[in-house]
C-alpha cells in the first residue's frame, strides 16, 4: 500500500564558505492513491526534499538517508537508473509554469519527448496520447495547441499543459511543487480540482507541496508540516487540521484568515522570523518563536514521536487532548 517511504532524508548544500543543512532527517510515507501534503514556509526545506528524491539538486548538494519507491531506494540508485524512474514513474509539476517550459520548443515536443524516450513511442502515437491528455486537462482545441509555443498560453493553461506533460508516461507518483502559487486566484481552484480528479481517475499518488493550509484541508489525505528542514507534525489531514498538536501547526492555522471569525478581528502572525538554513537555532528549531518552550527545547532536538496514526515532534505537547 505504501508507494514511497522516505526515511531520515538529509540534504546538505556546500556554498563557498560553509555547508548548510537544508533538510535534516525527514521521514514520511506516501500511500497508493493518496494525496500527501507537505506544508511549510519558504525555506523550510519542502521543495528541496522532493527535488532530492529525483536527483535534481545542483552540484554540491549531498543527500543521505533513503527513499524506497516501489522497493528501490531512489537515494542510493545510480544516476542513470534514477533517470529511468524520473518522468516515467514519477512526474513533476513545477511552481512557475512561465519558466518551467522551454521557450523555444513547441508544446507538442515538450509533451512527448519523454514518452518517446522512455517507451520509444512513435511520433504519431505520442501525439495521439498528448492530444488525449490535453483534452483531459481541458485545453481547448488540443490539435492546435500541440503545435504552438508556450508563450502563446496563459499561466493557468500552461500549468494544465505541464500537468498533462507530467502524466504522459502514466507515472505512479505525481509531485506538484506549489502548482498554484504563481497563478491567479481565479485559476487556482481549477488546477487543484484537476489534480484531485486525475488522482481519482488513475489511482495516482500525489505529493502536493504548498504553504496554503486551506488547499491542504480541501485536498490532502495525509499532511506533514515542515519547519526548519524537519517535520514537526504529521498525520491524516482532517485530524491534524482539526486538532493540531504542535505549537507551530497551531500558530500557522491561527494565522489563517478565517471566514467565520468576527469582523475587525486582526490577523495573527507568528512572532519572530522563520528559521532559515544557515542560522538554525539549536534544539527544537521552533523554540525561539514558541510560547510553550521549556529548557530542554533549547538544547535537545525533539524526536518525532508516534501518537496513534499521527506523529509529533514536541516534548511539551501543550495541546494534548
Amino acid at each position, binding site marked *: 500500500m505504501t508507494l514511497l517511504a522516505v526515511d531520515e532524508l538529509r540534504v546538505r548544500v556546500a556554498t563557498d564558505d560553509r555547508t548548510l543543512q537544508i533538510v535534516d532527517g525527514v521521514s514520511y510515507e506516501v500511500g497508493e492513491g493518496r494525496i500527501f501534503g507537505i506544508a511549510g514556509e519558504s525555506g523550510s526545506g519542502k521543495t528541496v526534499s522532493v527535488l532530492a528524491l529525483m536527483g535534481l539538486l545542483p552540484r554540491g548538494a549531498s543527500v543521505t538517508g533513503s527513499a524506497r519507491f516501489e522497493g528501490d531506494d531512489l537515494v542510493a540508485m545510480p544516476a542513470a537508473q534514477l533517470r529511468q524512474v524520473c518522468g516515467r514513474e514519477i512526474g513533476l509539476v513545477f511552481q512557475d509554469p512561465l519558466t518551467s517550459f*522551454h521557450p523555444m520548443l513547441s508544446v507538442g515536443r515538450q509533451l512527448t519527448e519523454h514518452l518517446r524516450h522512455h517507451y520509444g513511442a512513435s511520433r504519431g502515437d505520442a501525439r495521439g496520447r498528448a492530444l488525449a491528455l490535453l483534452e483531459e486537462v481541458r485545453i481547448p482545441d488540443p490539435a492546435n495547441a500541440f503545435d504552438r509555443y508556450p508563450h502563446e498560453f496563459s499561466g493557468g493553461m500552461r500549468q494544465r499543459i505541464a500537468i498533462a506533460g507530467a502524466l504522459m508516461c502514466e507515472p505512479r507518483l505525481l509531485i506538484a511543487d506549489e502548482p498554484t502559487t504563481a497563478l491567479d486566484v481565479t485559476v487556482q481552484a481549477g488546477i487543484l480540482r484537476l489534480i484531485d480528479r486525475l488522482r481519482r481517475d488513475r489511482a495516482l499518488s500525489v505529493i502536493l507541496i504548498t504553504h496554503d493550509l486551506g488547499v491542504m484541508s480541501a485536498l490532502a489525505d495525509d499532511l506533514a508540516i515542515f519547519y526548519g528542514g524537519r517535520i514537526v507534525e504529521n498525520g491524516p489531514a482532517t485530524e491534524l487540521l482539526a486538532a493540531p498538536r504542535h505549537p507551530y501547526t497551531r500558530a500557522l492555522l491561527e494565522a489563517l484568515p478565517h471566514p467565520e471569525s468576527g469582523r475587525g478581528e486582526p490577523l495573527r502572525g507568528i512572532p519572530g522570523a522563520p528559521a532559515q538554513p544557515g542560522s538554525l537555532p539549536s534544539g527544537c528549531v521552533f523554540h525561539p518563536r514558541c510560547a510553550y518552550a521549556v529548557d530542554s527545547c533549547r538544547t535537545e532536538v525533539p524526536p518525532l514521536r508516534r501518537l496513534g496514526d499521527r506523529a509529533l515532534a514536541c516534548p511539551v505537547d501543550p495541546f494534548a487532548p
Partner: protein
Amino acid sequence: MPWPFFRFLGRRLAALVVLALGITFVAFVLTQLVPGDPALTALGPVTSADPEAVAAYHAHWGMDKPLPVQYLTYLWNLLHGDLGTSQLSHQPVLNDLQHAIPATMELAFLSIAFAIVVGVPLGVVAAIRQNRASDHALRVVSLAGISMPTFWLALLALYVFFFKLDWFPGGGRLDPGTTPPGQITGLYTVDAVLHGQWSLAWDALHHLILPALVLAAFNVSLITRYTRSAILEVINDDYVRAARAKGLPERVVVIRHVLRAALPSVVTVLGLVFANVLTGAVLVENIFAWPGIGQYAYQASIELDLPAIMGVSLFVAVVYVTVNFVVDVLYGVIDPRLRLT
C-alpha cells in the same frame, strides 16, 4: 512572405544604403588626405617627371575636377553599377571584385564552419565543467587562441605542414598550371564539383585547408568563450531542471534544451566572427598568396588605388549589413517568440 518581413527587409536595405554612403564618403575623404599623388606611383619615376603626363593621368582619372564633383560622379556611376576602373589592374573594379570575393568567401565559409564545429562543443564542455580543471584549461587555451598573431600562426603552419612535412601546398588556390573550373559560384571547390571535376575539387580543397584552419584559430577561441557564457546564463533555468525531471538523458538535456536556449547568444557572435575573418584574411591571404579580397585591399591601400579602395569598402558594408540581416533572421528561426507574424 508576410508583410512585416518586407518592412524588415526594407529597413535593412535602407541601412545598407546609408552605410554605403558613409563608408564610401569616409574612404573618399581618407584617400584625399594622401600627401602622395597616385600618378607618381602609377606612372613610375621617369614618366611622372613629365608634368604633361601627370596632368593627362589626372584628367584621365577625373582627378582634375573639384572633390565634391569627383565624389558625386562616383556615386552616380555606382548607381549604374559602375564601380570605376582600378588604377592598378586597369580592370573594372567590379570585375576584380568578382574574382577576389569568391576566393575570400570560400576561405571564410570553411574557416567559420570549422570554428563553429570546434568552438561550440568546447564552449559546452567548458560550461558544464564550470570551475573544474577542464574549464580552466579551456580558458587558458582560448585566451592563447585570441593572443596568437594570425600571421605568425600562418608562418608556423606553413613551416611545419608545407616545408617540413609537405602535407599541404604552400599557397595559392590551385596547383601551378592548373586551369580553374568554369566560374559558376566562384568557389573553386563548388564549381569543380558542379562540373564533375573531382580531382580539381580535391586540389582546391587541399589548398584551402591550411589557410582556413589558421584563420579559424581566433574564432574557435572566441566562439568557445561566447558559448560558455551563453550556456552558463541558461543552465540553471527552470526548464532545464524540468527536462531532467522528465528523465531525459543528460546528452539530450544539454543539446536539445540547454544549447538550444543558448543559441541566440551564440548567433550574436557571428557578426564578430565575420569581421575577424575579414581581418584575418588580409594577413593570411598575404602569406598564402591567396588572391582574395584581403590581398586586393592590401594592394589597393599600398598603391592608393582609390576606386579599388572604395570597392572594397562597399563590399565591407554589404557584408556587414548582410551578416546582421542573417543574424536577425536566425534569431527568428531559433526563437519563436521573436518571429515576425
